[in-house]
């Protein structure tokens, strides 16, 4: 089936969103969404890596032996993740001190490997680049939404800025800071999104 760039973009962000439709990248969704600032940098790293790894894997698809394609994909993904890590460390060292451990974990994000195997290895470079960007943006939108709820509920702050007179009206929910809080949020969001936001494909 031939895709148009618009279809690819809308599918990645909406109809085939990697989080609530494909259920990929859940590990980092649970881990980083307790703080919005961490989430934003994680999203930047993921969009960069997904887009460029999709493009590179697509460019090499006709030359890559099938038997070693996954090794090659991991190598390419790891290379871009290391670049993201170095860039953040050089340009935003203070941010890197907070999210450094998670940047390395982008390598293990299922979305990147999933899109490389399912799309980039079978489609043209430009479409694959769009698909990578769209999947990254789709992932980012969900994470930002979840983080925008978890951080105020868990820490009483948003982007590290304490909410006004927080102590007078709010007692922080520690569970929202911890992974179980992300499970609840993700479960509710997935139910909401699949019930009202997207159309189920009838087979």
């Amino acid at each position, binding site marked *: 089936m031939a895709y148009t760039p618009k279809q690819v973009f809308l599918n990645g962000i909406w109809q085939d969103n990697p989080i609530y439709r494909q259920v990929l990248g859940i590990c980092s969704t649970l881990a980083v969404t307790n703080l919005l600032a961490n989430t934003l940098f994680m999203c930047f790293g993921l969009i960069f890596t997904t887009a460029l790894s999709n493009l590179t894997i697509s460019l090499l698809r006709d030359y890559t032996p099938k038997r070693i394609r996954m090794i090659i994909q991991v190598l390419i993904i790891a290379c871009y993740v290391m670049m993201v890590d170095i860039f953040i460390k050089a340009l935003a060292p203070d941010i890197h001190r907070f999210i450094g*451990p998670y940047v390395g974990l982008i390598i293990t994000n299922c979305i990147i490997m999933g899109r490389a195997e399912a799309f980039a290895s079978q489609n043209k470079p430009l479409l694959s680049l769009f698909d990578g960007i769209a999947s990254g943006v789709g992932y980012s939108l969900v994470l930002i939404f979840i983080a925008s709820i978890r951080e105020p509920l868990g820490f009483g702050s948003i982007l590290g800025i304490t909410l006004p007179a927080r102590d007078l009206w709010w007692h922080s929910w520690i569970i929202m800071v911890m992974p179980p809080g992300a499970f609840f949020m993700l479960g509710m969001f997935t139910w909401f999104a699949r019930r009202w936001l997207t159309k189920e494909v009838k087979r």
Partner: protein
Amino acid sequence: MKKTSPAYILGFMIIICTVFGTAISSVHYATLNMLIKNEKLHKNRSICRVFNLSVTGASADAFQKAIDDNISHEQVTYEGRTWEVYKQKETGNIGFVFSGTGFWDRISGIIILSADLSKIVNIQFLDQKETPGLGARIEEGWFIDQFKGISIAWDQPADKRIIVGPAPIPSAKNRVDAITGATQTSLALMKFLNSELEAFRAVIKERGEKKMSEVPSPSLE
């Protein structure tokens, strides 16, 4: 040549590894000076913060000048380990770079003790890779502030001179609160801080700058 032949696969892997390895090396090399500069700036900023030095400006040179004017620095080698020791000229407060294993990875920082080693004056963390939002909160102000002025219970067992978390006597002068949801990081911090204090005391004793008889043994309340 067939794509399935071993020679093609081997050649392809070598080319890919060479190209991407070179790309990573180039990016690393291009940013090396920035990384070294950032690391030095971070360390100098932490030293100024932990000694509470006033700095005019925010440049690397401003931090370096404040350190040069107020702090004496030396490296002391003892039992195969090199200690970075800092001494504040005005107060005599003495500090050292500590490190130990946290929950995930190594944690390092600078701790400042009073001249008689009886109290912790301040503490700052240089590097840590604990869980963001949980263990990584050891760098937050409220946690660090707890250490300011607490006593070191030299008369207690070596692993209880500083207590992070619950203690039989909650109001003990050598205790700070742990971080909710980061119990393992808090326990690891307590373990290696006590170990580092014990080792540093031996360094000071060896150098003859302090006699242990002079070190007071604060009583616990």
